[in-house]
């Protein structure tokens, strides 16, 4: 074994490493293993058969006291004789050790051995199956390299400028992550071994998912920090940064999207974390912002390269929707998200520049991203991206910039609200026009984190008699929140700032009075 290895190694160094030959050799090796397994399986099956026969014999042997048999007498002759002491069996235990047992005991020993044989057989069958699968893979490899039914997707890895990252460059905390990326990056050169590397990719995928989760936590913290920074610096800036989104699910999504963008190997990251990304996003919020999934776009150009058709794709930046804080309401706007921008002014410039630019290109669809540009509502002469219908409405009107300050307050408020709400089921349904989330009382406890005091929609309704008694119940719980929320300086016995509709109703009632 060693000799062959030695000589072939020398040979290999001399001749050019022909991929085809390698694949063939791989397949040969696999087939050898399979053959070996087969042989062993045959052997063990035979042994198992023998033991079964023995078991039968042992069972029937003590039936009679003696048997008339033809006893072998040397290699050529037999002699009639008797088989006596039918219950006494001398068993070979192994390594020249014998034991005299009764037939039953011998049977027990046989059972024992049969179990062992079965175990071996199962192992062999498993290995055989594995190697057969591997043989299948190598055959696919051949197909891949020869026939070209597989398409090789390549992406040009440009310089680091285009690598979109949010915040800092990622530092590999895990030692495993970088090498795996390298092996996967080598996919471009070694097409034939794609399948082998796919196995690595699979593993890398799993790894990168774990990384993603860890990264998610990191990014969330980063975003929160950035949020605070931005809020402090751009108080009047309508073209807010991308980080003004406050919901945790959105942060997750952004983190998800930034994650694949950060990885230096875009092609591989697209392959590996794309599906992971999709999974994560779907977990985060089913009706989520689908546009964020499509940060990476494909420009399909098929090129013939040697024998393999290849698709080249590159990332295009998608018009990012941002929440712009205008007082208490927030609206969606398009903004170009440029990563690696160090200054806010730089970002503003770009945004202003590209906003106009995007306006012109509205009607020209070259990539899926443009579709989103097309589906816009034109408000005040500017294209406003249409909100996903799956998103809850209250988000629209949330006061993003204030969340950090009032989040604590809000939380208390919501808790109290929930408590009060639990008593008051009926009025909710009355006043829940246009609020999808408040249809059921159970919806409320679910969304406390995204509650705002004033939804912006004032429901003009006469305060019903039924509502009034509820009012008496509710107020003790809620006056404090109002102090903080309402800057108009409403009175202490203020209407409760509960679910938006309630506030509006009572405020409306008060205002009407």
């Amino acid at each position: 074994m060693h000799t062959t290895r030695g000589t072939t190694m020398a040979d290999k160094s001399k001749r050019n490493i022909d991929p085809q030959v390698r694949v063939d050799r791989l397949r040969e090796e696999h087939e050898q293993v399979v053959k070996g397994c087969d042989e062993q399986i045959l052997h063990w099956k035979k042994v198992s058969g023998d033991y079964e026969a023995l078991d039968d014999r042992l069972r029937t042997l003590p039936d009679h006291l003696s048997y008339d048999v033809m006893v072998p007498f040397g290699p050529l002759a037999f002699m009639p004789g008797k088989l006596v002491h039918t219950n006494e069996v001398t068993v070979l235990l192994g390594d020249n050790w014998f034991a005299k047992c009764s037939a039953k005991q011998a049977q027990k020993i046989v059972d024992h051995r049969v179990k062992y044989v079965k175990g071996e057989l199962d192992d062999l069958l498993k290995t055989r199956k594995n190697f057969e699968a591997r043989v299948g893979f190598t055959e696919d490899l051949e197909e891949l390299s020869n026939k070209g039914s597989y398409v090789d997707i390549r992406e040009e890895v440009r310089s680091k400028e285009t690598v979109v990252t949010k915040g800092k460059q990622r530092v590999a905390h895990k030692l495993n992550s970088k090498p795996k990326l390298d092996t996967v990056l080598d996919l471009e050169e070694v097409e034939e071994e794609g399948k082998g590397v796919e196995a690595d990719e699979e593993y890398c995928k799993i790894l990168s998912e774990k990384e993603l989760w860890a990264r998610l936590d990191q990014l969330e913290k980063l975003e929160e920090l950035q949020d605070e920074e931005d809020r402090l610096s751009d108080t009047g800036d309508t073209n807010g940064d991308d980080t003004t989104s406050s919901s945790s699910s959105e942060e997750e999504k952004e983190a998800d999207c930034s994650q694949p963008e950060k990885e230096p190997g875009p092609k591989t990251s697209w392959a590996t974390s794309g599906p992971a990304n999709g999974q994560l996003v779907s977990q985060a919020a089913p009706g989520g912002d689908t546009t964020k999934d499509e940060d990476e776009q494909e420009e399909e150009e098929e090129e013939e390269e040697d024998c393999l058709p290849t698709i080249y794709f590159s990332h295009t930046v998608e018009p990012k929707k941002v929440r712009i804080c205008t007082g208490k309401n927030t609206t969606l706007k398009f903004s170009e998200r440029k990563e690696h921008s160090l200054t806010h002014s730089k970002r503003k410039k770009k945004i202003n520049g590209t906003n106009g630019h995007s306006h012109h290109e509205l009607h020209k669809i070259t990539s899926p991203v443009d579709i989103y540009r097309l589906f816009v509502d034109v408000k005040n002469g500017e294209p406003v991206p249409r909100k996903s219908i799956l998103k809850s409405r209250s988000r629209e009107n949330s006061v993003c910039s204030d969340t950090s300050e009032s989040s604590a307050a809000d939380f208390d408020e919501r808790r109290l609200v929930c408590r009060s709400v639990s008593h008051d089921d009926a009025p909710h349904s009355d006043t829940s026009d246009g609020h999808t989330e408040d249809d059921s009382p159970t919806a409320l406890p679910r969304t406390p984190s995204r509650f705002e005091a004033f939804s912006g929609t004032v429901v003009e309704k006469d305060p019903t008699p039924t509502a009034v008694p509820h009012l008496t119940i509710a107020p003790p719980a809620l006056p404090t929140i109002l102090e903080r929320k309402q800057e108009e300086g409403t009175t202490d016995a203020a209407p409760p700032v509960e679910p938006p509709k309630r506030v509006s109703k009572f405020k409306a009632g008060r205002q009407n009075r």
Partner: protein
Amino acid sequence: MAEALQKKLQSELEKYKQMQKDVSKSMSVRQKLEAQLTENNIVKEELDLMESSNTVYKLIGPVLVKQDLEEAKATVAKRLEYINGEIQRYEALLKEMEKKSDQHREVLSSLQQEYQKATGRAVAKV
């Protein structure tokens, strides 16, 4: 010059082959030891299951010699230990031999290269 190199090459090759043979021999011995190990393990298990009522024999040559169950157990245990020790020894030996063979291989490859160069030069001259 080239011929001297060639002779050197040949001798090195012979040595290397010898090394490889030794390595493979030790490997086979080790494998045999492993088989014995498993066997003795089975015997040990069987003896543990065995009650003292039935007699245990040991095959010594053409003779089956009666043995005491406890004695047999002790003997088998000792044999197991011995086999384990042997396996370890052979493993160490094997490692050493592998290292040596690797060194030899390197020497061989360098010699080969030199020889090629020499022959190349000779061809060029001619």
